[in-house]
């Protein structure tokens, strides 16, 4: 594909021999945690663990970042996570910020939606950013963190589970060596070799429809919005997506028929006329062309002994909904604090089971949502097509029809039905309930500076944190719990009244946040005993 892979070797990294390779085979080096796969998930997880004080070895079998834009939509939740990892500013500065999507049917617009219609959030609903930029910024961040040892061209070829560790055999350009790790996290992607090594199945649904992705470079006046067409005039009977990326690159996604020949369809001379029909001109160059089919599937168990799976290695979804990379990043933020506590011995190893419970539940939700979108775009029977046609027709004049049109439901943080949550004992009208992600809101510091609640959480070290709303009386916070106070002397000011509103808070209310920013429990009248009990449950101690 001439001229289509200009970003193939965006950044190249050298293999470097490590002293571990010189150790005799009988006494390999031992590490608390080895992460396999330096994609967005593995890189983020390594940074998070290192920031929590763990030494991490990060292995990748390649020596470069590249090969197409791949994931492009990063969610607010992912940006809030990357904020804590010290990389979000760069991502947002480079990325294209968006929150509006439009759905068209034929020539006319059916409706538009705004994924973040309210102000008072530090981060936007989404940015679009080529995956290679995201990975490059994460790799840069790792160079500031001596606790991470990133080893390129280190390919895991064997995994042996032992009672107290995992033995890895690693192939390098200079031969094989071995490492021992207390835990191994496999972030090695949809074709995970570690998944095969532990003998796990990866079952699910294969969708027969084929989609063509083309990233094209052009200067265009389209707004920075997600545009989705059903049955557009330039691509009759099928669906199409147009989305902007940085550097004047545009993501175009075209549905093809089930029987299209991939090698023929992928040829630039065949792709070009399709895109020219869509754009109305042919003043563009190809950055990347890829043809794919969806699979929606997940591992039965995300934890196999001491090997834990995160991201695409554990679950795969269709791309309409930005639920791939974003859910992988949610895996990383869910796992890292738990693994850190287990490695420190402050929580029992059974805490890790909650990673499987929470994130496999999230994977099920993501698979359900993206399967529904895919089925709407590519109906499976005449009757399904008929129902879809009825929805599209009703959408022109009814609000309920618009809401049923499914051109992709975009990633939002899942709420966990979790053993770590304490049930509400008080009455709440709204606000994030236990198992839901914290909500951002503007605050003012004592010095009068505008900031955000997510900043305060990050600065406090992303540990267990009590967010309390002052009623004048001091809150008795158990040891080891960080403290964010809204109102009162020395507290942050709810300058716009939005925190109290978003958290349905009255003076005296308090939320116990987990280290990943999820709500563990909330109280109208917090007592030390109640907070301690919720903390104990959320840390997997009972």
């Amino acid at each position: 594909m001439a001229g289509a892979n200009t970003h193939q070797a965006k950044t190249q990294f050298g293999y470097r021999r490590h002293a571990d390779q010189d150790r005799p085979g009988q006494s390999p080096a031992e590490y608390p945690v080895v992460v396999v796969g330096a994609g967005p998930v593995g890189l983020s997880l390594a940074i998070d663990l290192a920031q929590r004080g763990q030494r991490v070895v990060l292995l990748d079998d390649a020596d470069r970042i590249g090969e197409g834009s791949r994931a492009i939509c990063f969610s607010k939740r992912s940006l809030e996570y990357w904020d804590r990892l010290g990389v979000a500013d760069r991502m947002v500065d480079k990325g294209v910020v968006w929150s509006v999507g439009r759905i068209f049917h034929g020539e006319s617009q059916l409706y538009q939606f705004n994924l973040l219609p309210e102000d008072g959030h530090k981060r936007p609903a989404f940015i679009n950013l080529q995956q290679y930029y995201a990975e490059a910024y994460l790799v840069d961040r790792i160079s500031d963190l001596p606790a991470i040892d990133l080893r390129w061209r280190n390919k895991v070829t064997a995994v042996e589970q032992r009672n107290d560790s995992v033995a890895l055999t690693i192939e390098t350009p200079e031969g094989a060596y071995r490492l021992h790790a207390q835990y191994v996290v496999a972030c090695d992607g949809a074709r995970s070799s570690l998944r095969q090594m532990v003998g796990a199945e990866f079952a699910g649904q294969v969708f027969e429809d084929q989609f063509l992705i083309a990233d094209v470079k052009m200067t265009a006046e389209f707004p920075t919005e997600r545009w989705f067409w059903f049955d557009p005039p330039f691509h009759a009977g099928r669906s199409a997506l147009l989305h902007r990326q940085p550097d004047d690159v545009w993501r175009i996604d075209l549905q093809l028929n089930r029987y299209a020949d991939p090698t023929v369809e992928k040829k630039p001379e065949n792709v070009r006329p399709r895109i020219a029909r869509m754009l109305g001109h042919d003043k563009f160059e190809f950055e990347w062309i890829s043809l794919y089919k969806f699979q929606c599937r997940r591992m039965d168990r995300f934890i196999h002994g001491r090997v834990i799976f995160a991201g695409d290695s554990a679950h795969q979804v269709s791309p309409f909904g930005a639920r791939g990379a974003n859910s992988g990043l949610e895996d990383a933020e869910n796992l890292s604090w738990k693994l850190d506590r287990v490695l420190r011995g402050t929580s029992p190893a059974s805490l890790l089971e909650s990673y499987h419970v929470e994130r496999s539940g999230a994977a099920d939700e993501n698979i359900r949502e993206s399967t529904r979108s895919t089925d709407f775009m590519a109906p499976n029977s005449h009757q399904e097509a008929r129902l879809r046609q009825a929805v599209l027709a009703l959408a022109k004049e009814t609000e309920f029809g618009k809401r049923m049109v499914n051109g992709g439901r975009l990633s939002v943080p899942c709420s966990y039905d979790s053993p770590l949550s304490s049930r509400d004992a008080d009455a709440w009208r709204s606000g994030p309930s236990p198992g839901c992600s914290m909500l951002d809101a503007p605050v003012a510091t004592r010095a009068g500076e505008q900031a955000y609640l997510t900043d305060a959480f990050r600065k406090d070290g992303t540990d267990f944190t009590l967010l309390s709303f002052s009623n004048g009386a001091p809150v008795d916070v158990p040891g080891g719990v960080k403290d964010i106070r809204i109102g009162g002397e020395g507290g942050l000011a709810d300058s716009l009244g939005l925190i109290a509103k978003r958290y349905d808070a009255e003076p005296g209310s308090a939320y116990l946040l987990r280290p990943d920013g999820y709500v563990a429990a909330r109280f109208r009248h917090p007592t030390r005993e109640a907070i301690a009990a919720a903390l104990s449950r959320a840390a997997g101690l009972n």
Partner: protein
Amino acid sequence: MPLSTSSNFARPDDAFRAIVEAHRGLTDEQSADFDAALVLILANHIGDIDVLRDALVLAKRRMIDGQQQQQQQQQ
């Protein structure tokens, strides 16, 4: 069961007739298109997922019963 199966129309024949007449002059294909839209409109008006699920179960069960009856008659 939240689905109401008691007779809700004061004049049930009017309701049945209205639906039948809406289909008059339509081909089977057009009738199917019409029904698809009608089902979605009514489902949204009901606006209760439990009622909808009960209705789906009842409709499916009647369909299966009907098929069995037909098969028995053919034997």
